[in-house]
């Protein structure tokens, strides 16, 4: 049975962390509705295990981990649907332009690399914190970051250059 103070704490957590988490879901899925739905689902799971979640050092880190896994699962599902329904993979991502290219570049990475890149380059976590969250050695994180950046840069570079050309 949850207490009223749990509800207050959860509501405050929801209000505080929503923006940060939904933006990550958007970066990983490239679709607004999917990002909102998955973020809500992650919060729902956090609430279902609220006592356990609040016992952790960072409830947001726990929820973020759940959210990232939901997004990665979504990649798999959508990739499967796209491949077998004849839809071009690019069409799965609704948003166009540079958002789309970054999202597609992230999707082309192995899931742990994509998470490492998001945590470090997107959210500004240190290598040590990223390693702690991914439960891998720091050296592994550095290697993932290096490889991940190379792949992402290669895919978003044309857009960046186009950007500069427009100015």
């Amino acid at each position, binding site marked *: 049975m949850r207490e009223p103070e749990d509800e207050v704490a959860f509501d405050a957590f929801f209000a505080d962390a929503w923006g940060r988490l939904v933006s990550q879901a*958007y970066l990983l899925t490239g679709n607004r509705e999917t990002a909102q739905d998955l973020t809500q689902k992650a919060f729902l*799971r956090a609430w279902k295990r609220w006592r356990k979640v609040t016992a952790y050092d960072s409830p947001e880190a726990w929820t973020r981990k759940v959210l990232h896994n939901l997004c990665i699962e979504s990649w798999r599902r959508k990739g499967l*649907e796209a491949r077998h329904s004849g839809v071009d993979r690019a069409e799965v991502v609704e948003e166009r332009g540079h958002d789309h290219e*970054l999202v597609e570049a992230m999707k082309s990475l192995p899931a742990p690399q994509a998470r490492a890149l998001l945590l470090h380059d997107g959210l500004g976590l240190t290598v040590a914190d990223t390693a702690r969250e991914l439960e891998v050695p720091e050296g592994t994180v550095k290697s993932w970051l290096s490889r991940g950046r190379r792949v992402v840069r290669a895919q978003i570079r044309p857009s960046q250059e186009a950007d500069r050309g427009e100015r």
Partner: protein
Amino acid sequence: MTDDLAPDEVVRAAMAKVLGTGRELRPTVTAAALRRRAWRTHFPRIDTKLVGASAAVVVLVVTLVVAGPLRSTQPHQPTTERTAPRGWVAYSAYGLQLSVPKSWSVQPFGQCPRGNTLFIGTSQFVDSCPEFGSGGTIVSMSAKPDPYTASHDGSTAQDNAAALALYSADVAATRNGRSLIVNGLRVLQARTGSDLLWVIPANRAVLTGSGPAAEKVMRTLATVTTSASPAPGTVYGTAYLSALVRVPITGRVTYVRIQPIDKSLVAHSVGVLNGNYSATLTPGTYRFTTADGNAQCSSVSAKVESGRMITAPPIVCQGM
């Protein structure tokens, strides 16, 4: 931030821009509504729309298979029948069996893979699992359509849509995919990279596999035999005191297997919290009851089937 790895400005700038766009997305529900949904979905009602839609999909599959469009224009290429290697262990559900090495982790309704893992029944292994995507082999066997599959956890329209979309993908897959005969069973196969999706229309079952040993394990699929260990099923139930108002019970629910009868006649019990209980049990018919002070409580029975989640009738205690 102390960091000995030089940041890549191009990547960081691109991410900052997309994160900024994403940050503008507002929630479509309030926190309070989300909390209420958690209560509702803890013991979800069967979604009639999902049942209807799932039934329609099944009818479509059966029709297409029978009528021909999904039937391969080429003769089936029966695959070599492979029995499981010596020492492997067979598990059954949905009239099927699948064999895995003894060292594998076998998880009915499991949550997190542990090394090489066989999931039977609906699993939710995306939930914060340390070994998710770690390179082991994961094979899952579940039934479709299964209303609980979609509504057990999130119970959102998107879940239902996703479940149906997957099933639709199964159907579409037969255009690009293959029709196989595996140990006498007709299987529709879709392959994405190293991931495999098998639909067994006759049993309304779905197998998924990823990882190096997935196909080898899936090739042991066969019609159930007595040598296989039946996977357990899960029963969900409610218990309440019916007085002036309906009061959820907290305490214990006792149960005994009545078919096949448990000759030891030992009753077991499981906790009931705020009127809700659940138990994962070997297949059979069970009788459940509870006690609440001097109130007279009904007993209810429910049939547990391998790999399925069922809902038992409510236990009602009549108060003063």
